[in-house]
């Protein structure tokens, strides 16, 4: 396909291939755990605690999800947001397709190396503060596909993951529990720590 200005789709393929190979080479091991700050003791004063409380309440109550669903777990996510489990109760039914508006990335499904640059890019383009839930075995470690030549063994190779939810796929109840954990984690944020 001719794209114009002298580029055709083969050029794009080659370029994207390079991006994938570069990422694959740089993501040989998992990223460091992002949650070390959870245990840190910090000095707080009355203003920061009040502001923190308000901000954290706002942030945990209104988690908008980015629609970046890759595979099977998507259906359990949709089940969770559908009428029976109704994630909207927590104000989370707002699905934003643009990463600029989203707070939470639920990585529902297997990640392949071909998809990894895109997911990484979407994550990087999300506005701060942002969180990642690795949903399902594939999201944690590659799961049943961990041996495959094309599968990234876990999202934590390319993204800092906040909460892991095991299961293949996790039940909606498990997903809700995971979201509850994330909300607890958000409560521990403080502007005094610069986040």
């Amino acid at each position, binding site marked *: 396909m001719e794209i114009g200005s002298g580029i055709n789709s083969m050029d794009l393929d080659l370029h994207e291939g390079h991006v994938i190979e570069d990422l694959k080479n740089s993501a040989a091991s998992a990223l460091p755990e992002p949650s070390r700050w959870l245990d840190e003791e910090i000095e707080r004063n009355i203003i920061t605690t009040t502001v923190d409380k308000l901000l954290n309440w706002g942030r945990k109550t209104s988690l908008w999800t980015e629609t970046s669903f890759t595979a099977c777990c998507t259906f359990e996510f949709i089940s969770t947001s559908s*009428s029976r489990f*109704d994630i909207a109760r927590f104000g989370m039914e707002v699905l934003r397709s643009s990463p600029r508006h989203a707070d939470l990335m639920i990585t529902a499904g297997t990640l392949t190396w071909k998809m990894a640059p895109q997911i990484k890019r979407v994550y990087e383009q999300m506005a701060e503060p942002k969180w990642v839930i690795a949903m399902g075995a594939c999201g944690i470690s590659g799961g049943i596909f961990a041996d495959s030549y094309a599968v990234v063994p876990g999202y934590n190779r390319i993204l800092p993951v906040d909460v892991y939810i095991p299961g293949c796929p996790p039940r909606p109840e498990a997903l809700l529990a995971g979201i509850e954990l994330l909300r607890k984690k958000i409560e521990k944020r403080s502007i005094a720590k610069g986040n």
Partner: protein
Amino acid sequence: MVELLLLPASIRSELPFGYWLHLLIFGLGIITLLLTSVIIFIWLERRLVGRFQLRHGPNRAGPFGLLQSVADVIKILTKEDIIPSRADKLVFWMAPVIAFTPVVLMLGVVPVADGALLADLNIGILFVVAISSVTSLGVFMAGWSSYNKYSLLSAMRTVAQLVSYEMPLILSMVGVVILTGSLSLNEMVKAQSIPFILLQPAGFFIFFTASLAEINRTPFDLLEADSELVAGYNIEYSGMKFATFYLTEYCEAIVLSTLTATLFLGGWQGPWLPPMIWLLLKIGLVFCVIVWIRATLPRLRIDQVMNFAWKFLLPLAILNLLLTSLSVIFWPTAPAWASGLINLSMLAVFILVYSKFFKPGGKTVAV
């Protein structure tokens, strides 16, 4: 606060600094009321959509989930502000302001009770018409300046869609003006001993449909068609600038509900309750209908949207205008039911004729 708002416009001349007091009360009153109602209406919409989809909707934040929108505001206020490096920065910054301002301005000429409005312009409705099209400029600026292909497409759709529906919107209001004989919105409300929706059902139909398109609600929500354009014109906006657009959208919905209530549903008029409560109730009713439509209907395609505006609504609006003016001149004593019936039958006949030419589907374009 409410009592102050209901003070007759004459306080201006009676009190010292009455003029400034009036500006302050109404200026701030409109903004506060609008923002509060946006927060409540967003909650209302989410709850209602929830009920339409047989689920609960937000119910955890505060009583009945009422604080959900407050949480959204807090979160979005403290979200990172991203300025795309390749965007046209000045336009990018200005767009939300330009989109938001005119929407609020429109409320300046809407009465909340007899004579209680910010400025009783003798050209009130013309002011509304003039100012309402500015929002589309802001939206276009946002879409274009973001340097994003989806938002560009959305911006282009703005040019075509929002502009096209101006025509039927304006024409449908002429019928109301003929019946009232004034351009002031306050006079229009006072003229409605019988709500104009009963005298001008066709006019109401045109006005309501066109305003759905103006506020880009389903089935005309092409500007931010999630399934096609990812998020639409505001795709690159984050934080408060995005929130401003979000706010604009809901303000527009509320303002057009207000206009519908004022022009066709008798505005603040109503027995027993205070006028302002009546107006709010009517606004709420219209807004609920908008939400109902949103939860029910799919989206039209761009050519269908255009055809609907230019080939259906526009001729219908002109026909409505002619018929109304004829009946005002030649049968001024017509009882209300008769003129309403004439208007309604015209609508029915027009729809029947149009449906003969209506071909579902589409065709490819040779490339």
